[in-house]
């Protein structure tokens, strides 16, 4: 009997600076503090059975993140949420847990795309109209080639097919850019890759000054990751 739970959580505030590996450690330790009956892998070096949908880049916060957690004995989903939340550091919060019944596809295999919002201070020389037209011009490109750092130097990569949607607006002194990007093992575009390409020749802004939030993670057909069960 598999006691598998799919958990939606957010990783914000100071927690956006911890790496994916740190997150795994922190979730495991939080689960231990909460005295959840964690299920472990077999073998010489047992690990708790926790898996994530898609790693979040360091510095990017996530408001709609997912992980699967397996327990040795069943637990009411709301109890799990409550217990875990009292044992997680500020910036990590469980929003919802659902028991996975039957064979659900792995989170990693389900994820197809993600939505992001990036915000920065709007410079005086950019208004909503110029922003929109810049984005439009950017999206009219057939290809967007970026230099992607790999273990052996850099490699050219076309990110245009991975950009599903791109839009922007401005509220008061803030400028927002919204992205829907291919995410996952088949095709993956990172938000700062898009921003980096966008500021080069289209929007004179500093990428470092954007605060980026992943606002949603979706399976194919824009279904939520809770969809299969």
């Amino acid at each position, binding site marked *: 009997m598999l006691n598998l739970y799919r958990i939606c959580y957010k990783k914000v505030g100071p927690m956006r600076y911890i790496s994916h590996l740190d997150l795994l450690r922190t979730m495991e330790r939080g689960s231990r503090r909460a005295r959840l009956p964690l299920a472990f892998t077999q073998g010489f*070096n047992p690990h708790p059975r926790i898996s994530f949908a898609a790693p979040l880049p360091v*510095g990017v916060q996530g408001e709609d993140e997912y992980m699967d957690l397996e327990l040795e004995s069943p637990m009411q989903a709301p109890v799990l949420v409550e217990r875990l939340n009292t044992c997680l550091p500020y910036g990590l919060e469980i929003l919802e847990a659902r028991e996975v019944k039957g064979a659900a596809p792995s989170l990693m295999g389900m994820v197809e795309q993600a939505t992001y919002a990036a915000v920065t201070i709007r410079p005086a020389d950019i208004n909503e109209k110029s922003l929109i037209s810049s984005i439009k011009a950017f999206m009219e490109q057939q290809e967007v080639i970026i230099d992607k750092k790999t273990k052996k130097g850099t490699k050219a990569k076309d990110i245009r097919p991975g950009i599903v949607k791109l839009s922007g607006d401005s509220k008061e002194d803030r400028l927002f850019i919204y992205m829907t990007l291919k995410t996952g093992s088949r095709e993956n575009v990172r938000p700062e890759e898009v921003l980096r390409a966008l500021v080069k020749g289209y929007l004179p802004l500093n990428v470092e000054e954007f605060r980026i939030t992943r606002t949603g993670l979706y399976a194919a057909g824009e279904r939520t990751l809770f969809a299969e069960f």
Partner: protein
Amino acid sequence: MEQLLERILATVEKPSRYVGGEWNSISKKWDQAEVKMAFAFPDVYEVGMSHLGMQILYKVVNDRPDALMERVFAPWVDMEEKMRAAGLPLFSLESRRPLAEFDVVGFTLQYEMSFTNILNMLDMAGIPMRSSDRKGDNPLVIAGGPCGFNPEPLAPFIDAFVLGEGEEVINAVLDVYLAQKQQQCSRRDTLSALAGVEGIYVPAFYQFEYKQDGTVKEFKSDSHVPPVVKKRVVVDVNDVPFPTRPIVPHTDVVHDRMMLEVMRGCTRGCRFCQAGTIYRPVREKDPENLLAQAEELVRSTGWDEISLTSLSSSDYSGISEVIGGLVDRYSSERINVALPSLRADAFSVELAKEVQRVRRSSLTFAPEAGTQRLRDVINKGVTEENLMEAVTSAFKAGWSSVKLYFMIGLPSETEADLEGIVSLARRVLEAGRNISRSKGRLRVTVSASSFVPKSHTPFQWEPQDSLIELQEKQRFLKQRIKGKGLTFNWHEGQVSMLEADLARGNRDLAPVLERAWALGCRFDGWSECFDFSKWEKAFECFGIKPGDYALRRYSHEDVLPWDHLDAGVSKKYLTLEHKRALDGVPTVDCRGGKCPGCGICPSLEINTQLVGGKSVEPVQDLL
């Protein structure tokens, strides 16, 4: 500041080093604390967060309703560059306040090669580097830790040093500070009051004149301070605050596990070892107390490993009981027990077998020297037989990798001793070939560090080998310890030499440190940052060169630069131990019940404390 910091954090390596917010970290209300102290670790976050002493003091100070303690670590070079460019001062992790806004800043002195980081952190905080330049509203800068027993190279930069164990004396320091603050006393009056606390050394009240050879020609202390400062120790280790709710880092730190300290001190008496002197006497905690503390640690942290820490955990009298208790209670939760310091004998391997179901890591032993003669000189109570039994038992139990730690450059070392290291390594490998079931993975790693003479040890008078000698010895070993299954590691000789200079130096080295910092020296313990040429230049500016202090032989009659700092073990005893060393005569461990007369117990009016209320009757004076 927040926005500026956010922007910087987006561009530096490992930003989690600088954001805090870890589980069990404590953010007290700033305005409600009458005294605010920052604990400053002069190395990166991952190193500092592995330090038990910090967790202890963090608990002690934050347990006080009138005080708060926050943490600060040395920003890595990329962060320093960005902070300086942005004009951002060094800040604490908890409240992100500039360090200069704290009342007290306490540095820990764990190793000499972190000294330039202390200067750099003061500079980044905008706190005047020299004690004499600090004014009323500047923080009080204190420091303690092992290097506090010869802190002279840092004397002009630190207002007060703490000698010995900090968990009690820190309260005295804060009390004095608060009383002085209420009475609106001057900085100098505060320092005077601090100098009256046992275990506190205020260097400004002590004046030195040195001879050409670095020893003390004349030494004066102001009339209101003790001419000799004695270290502080905790009398009852069972009745002292222990951090059972330590901060749990998010990021992978060097020691990422629960630390359960089983005892203080070590009575083995290895003659090169400073910790063996400065943490005397041995005080063991009760097994019951340890198991209770372990339970709190497990529940409050969520870590999956408990490390039984001390200078020599297999010597702890209750070790089997504690390990048994921990394994019984926690193995079903997949919580491991780790033994970081193993004695080289079969008993220790038995312990390791019990705790390490999976032989994934290697076992490490420290014979320290290659021949019995030299092991007798250093009083390392380990024989070749002990070691062979240990490794045989380890290979039989399934370990395929063994690490052996040696020291080169020990007093009286000859080529025969180096040959001894080589043949020992080969014998161990041979044993592995005969026994081990996984011959393909068989590995014997030999690490040779260079002997650094330290204050308050029987070898404090001994010179270090010259750089050329050390490098030749390294070459000798490198040529011989090679081939399938053998690995040889060694430490950079230049670093060891500077370490010895600072460990045995006097106040004349302070301007050298300052110059080295100004030339850009930082993180000197990190090979990617260490730049010997800058140090050479810094020494040169003052007409000396690296090695001048390291290579000196002091005589028993000399007044040494640290003789006014008393670790409780008498100089007479150290002298006797030095002579015995050169005669190759070993000294007994007082655990056996016979007191060798080191003087610690009568001097500090304390007793060795062993499990079950056992103690050792001290002889008043053997000499």
